[in-house]
């Protein structure tokens, strides 16, 4: 399956007015490899739509975006990356959702002198010793939202958490991240199978554990299954999770079972800043659905790229890199800057799942960590 989008034409007169600022420096060809089919397609589609919305709003004619579907398979992602670098000759790459795919593509792409802007995956290997001058993460380091959840749990006075994640690297990072900031005892620690859909056995363990809270990291369909089964089990120990199980695409499938659950996120649709208000409104107008955190990350990634294009030519790698590092763009998250390892320093919020009319969504109820950098920055010698 091949989707190829050329964004060169069709710019409205209104957009031309703002375009006057953005001209001057040369064209940039962007290669976006993301997941558009198969199980995790919702995430890739949101990143793509957020990214393309920002490009469209800027009216910048100098950006050409080539989009390809990795089907969530590392081998396909590698083939696509080779093709984009060798035959499409892209300048900047972006789009990958999953950490295992990012690990397969990013190190070789940056070694070949390409810029890589990550709109989602933030494996610890690329934040610490494996950091690269040409790699910028616009979302978070993988551990960040879990660390924030640990901090929130300690602050909320939770003393006996039951923690659970799938048995794969990001799942282990998740529980380590939570434990890094959580000060209480553990009532239990369980690794589930990746892709597991039935959680009856784990729920029985939770019931028997005497925990005062349950922290779980189960992205995508796994989280939906868990929450529905948890709600039907009669266990009423409060749940805490990272935003991945509570994004806009998933909440509608979970329904009432998610109401009241606390989750941590670097973005929320009710974040009070001008950029975000406009983003939420325009995203809804363009795609007829509410944006998710993935969409906000795609949108921020594109705006970061556009901000660098205004300052430098992509052919002048040093100047372009410096321009990216400045992060001189209006983020949907408000304050945003890069640390020494080119990962974000940002606030992470606690949200609660609520119902607005017929739609399930999130509301910010507090800040878990302010100006939070990641735990691996000190290992990066840039």
């Amino acid at each position, binding site marked *: 399956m091949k989707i190829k989008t050329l964004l060169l034409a069709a710019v409205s007169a209104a957009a031309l007015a703002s375009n006057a600022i953005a001209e001057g420096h040369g064209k940039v060809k962007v290669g976006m490899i993301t997941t558009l089919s198969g199980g995790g397609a919702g995430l890739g589609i949101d990143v793509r739509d957020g990214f393309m919305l920002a490009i469209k709003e800027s009216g910048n004619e100098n950006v050409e975006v080539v989009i390809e579907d990795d089907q969530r398979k590392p081998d396909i992602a590698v083939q696509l990356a080779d093709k984009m670098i060798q035959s499409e000759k892209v300048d900047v790459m972006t789009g990958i959702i999953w950490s295992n795919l990012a690990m397969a593509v990013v190190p070789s792409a940056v070694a070949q002198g390409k810029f890589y802007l990550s709109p989602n995956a933030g494996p610890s290997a690329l934040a610490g010793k494996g950091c690269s001058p040409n790699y910028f993460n616009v979302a978070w380091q993988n551990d960040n939202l879990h660390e924030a959840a640990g901090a929130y749990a300690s602050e909320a006075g939770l003393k006996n958490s039951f923690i659970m994640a799938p048995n794969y690297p990001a799942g282990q990072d998740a529980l380590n991240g939570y434990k890094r900031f959580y000060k209480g005892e553990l009532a239990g620690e369980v690794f589930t199978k990746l892709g597991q859909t039935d959680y009856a*056995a784990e729920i029985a363990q939770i019931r028997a554990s005497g925990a005062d809270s349950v922290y779980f990291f189960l992205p995508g369909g796994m989280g939906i299954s868990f929450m529905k089964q948890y709600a039907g089990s*009669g266990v009423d120990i409060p749940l805490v999770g990272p935003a991945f199980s509570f994004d806009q695409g998933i909440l509608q499938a979970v329904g009432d079972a998610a109401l009241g659950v606390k989750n941590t996120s670097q973005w929320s649709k009710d974040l009070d800043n001008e950029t975000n208000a406009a983003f939420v409104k325009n995203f809804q107008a363009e795609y007829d659905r509410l944006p998710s955190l993935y969409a906000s990350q795609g949108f921020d990634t594109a705006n970061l790229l556009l901000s660098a294009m205004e300052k430098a030519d992509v052919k002048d790698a040093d100047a372009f890199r410096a321009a990216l590092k400045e992060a001189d763009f209006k983020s949907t998250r408000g304050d945003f800057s890069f640390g020494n390892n080119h990962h974000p320093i940002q606030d992470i919020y606690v949200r609660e799942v609520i119902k607005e009319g017929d739609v399930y969504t999130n509301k910010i109820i507090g800040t878990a960590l302010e100006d939070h950098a990641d735990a691996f920055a000190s290992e990066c010698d840039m």
Partner: protein
Amino acid sequence: MSTVLIIEQILNGLQFGVMLFLMAAGLTLIFGVMGLINLAHGSLYMVGAFAAAAVAASTGSFLLALAASLAAAAIVGAIIELVVIRRLYDRDHLDQVLATFALILIFSETTRWLFGSFPLFLDVPEALSGTVTLPGGIAYSSYRLMIISVGIIVAVGLFLLISKTRIGMRIRAGENDREMIGALGVDISKLYTLIFALGAALAGLSGALVGAIQSVQVGMGEPVLILAFVVIVIGGIGSIKGALVGAILVGLTDTLGRVMLPLFFANFMEQSSATSVGSSLASMSIYILMAAVLIFKPTGLFGRA
């Protein structure tokens, strides 16, 4: 670990096994009677779940949703049998695998095109949403008990259908010698379509039942398909009794392995490495079971040589 917890986990294992049986029964019938490896069986499971979610969303009735899942999967099953599968009976297994794998891709992308990439909502009906207290003070989900009973009813129904009815007699005859029953004047192609639709309907029903407590999304069928293949290999290919016993064995092994193995390793290891090692071994447990069964019974528990 308390007795109550162990009984609860055994019930969970039974429920998982019963759900696998609904998938495996169709798969083993189709393989036993027609000699066809049908990878698209997981897609029929997905069709059932999506049909149920769509009908539940528009009518609000869970019973109608279940009926829709049976009907939709049976109809889709009959259509693919008539259009595609029929041409594969005389081909070798590799061709069958390739063609039915193509069907998986076609079904997944068509479903995405019709329903979008985001998971659909399908909830447990109000009446079954709580728990019931069983003797001994075990609070157990009433919906899961309902799944166990549906599975038992289907198992009994299939047993009666195959051993007591005329269609069942033909199915058994078809398994033994398909040329001969053709020669005796039985319309074999109609029989095949019927069996295929029956297997599809069971997969669809299982998709709808499970969809209510899991997530209804594109690609939901493939992980279950792999487990269903493990079940029919353990039970003996073509045997409904084998599918039932294999499914219960797999369900219990998987569930109890997940709970017991981490506890077992915690006796002589540090907690977090014990959970990690235990759960890694637990995810292998059913394959180890399969290997063990095949060593002692190469044709499966109830398979014929």
